[in-house]
């Protein structure tokens, strides 16, 4: 029997596949990003539909319940995403600063 939380997770995965595809269609994501994110949502969908499929990890990692595995895995995944975003924003900021400095030098005005 499928439990409530499984239905919520499966529904969430389907909605996220749809949203991810829409972003790709509007050219806000590249094909590679689309494939990576759709893979994430498909894995989540399958893990929710067949919770016994993660029992291998649950047993070997000595985690009490499948739900705990989801929580721990989700938290670690979010930390990785935050780290990657932090590095990306930092790099982007440095590039913006370099562009603004170059433009300000190019458009420098000296009083005659």
């Amino acid at each position, binding site marked *: 029997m499928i439990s409530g939380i499984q239905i919520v997770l499966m529904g969430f995965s389907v909605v996220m596949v749809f949203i991810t595809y829409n972003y790709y269609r509007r050219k806000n994501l590249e094909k590679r990003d689309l494939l990576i994110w759709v893979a994430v949502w498909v894995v989540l969908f399958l893990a929710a539909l067949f919770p016994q499929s993660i029992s291998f990890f649950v047993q070997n990692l000595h985690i009490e319940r499948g739900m705990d595995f989801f929580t721990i895995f989700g938290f670690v995944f979010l930390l990785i995403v935050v780290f990657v975003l932090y590095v990306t924003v930092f790099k982007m900021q440095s590039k913006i*600063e370099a562009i603004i400095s170059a*433009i*300000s030098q190019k*458009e*420098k*005005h*000296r009083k005659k």
Partner: protein
Amino acid sequence: MIAAVIPAYNEEKYLKDVILKTRKFVDKVIVVDDGSKDRTVEIAKKYADITLHHVVNMGKGFALRTGFEEAIRERASKIVMLDADGQHDPSDIPKLLRALSDTELVVGSRDFEKMPLRARFANIFLSFLFRCLFGTRINDTQSGFRALKSEIYKKIKWKSNRYGVETEMLANAAKKKINYSEVPIKTIYHEIYKGTNFTDGIKIALLMAKWRFFS
């Protein structure tokens, strides 16, 4: 050569007056327009010796870096920084420059009694915290009216683009053991106060801890 760096963001009301008064005391006035949406850049081009323009607003810290680097390219030996909103009286510049002969960095210290109440608490708290963290007493860590010798710029160069640029400058100076002093300055408060408020104070306090322990 003495240069004045004036970062400006939407300051069409006071900028002309600030530039003209500042020119009497320095050799070159450098205005950095930080993506203003009003006539700031036109006024700067008309009255300042050099005008640099940021196409988008990057914050006071970034604008000051742009201005200081330009002043150093122009071979300025002393650099004065002041706000474009008319809060600082340029006639205090000679006082700052005189004090600079005995030290490397001079901070213009405002009279807290005349400061709006909401800003006074934040400034007193930040100065107290600065003393606790860096072991140096300075009454007004948030004053944007300063003079410094250009050779110390690399040592005190700040990373902050927005909040706390003034404090980071002093934190770097304290860590590098650079001599600095304070001189009292006149401050003119207009109807809209743009300085440090309570929320900024909290953010700067957290940044201060970061600069003390993690930089």
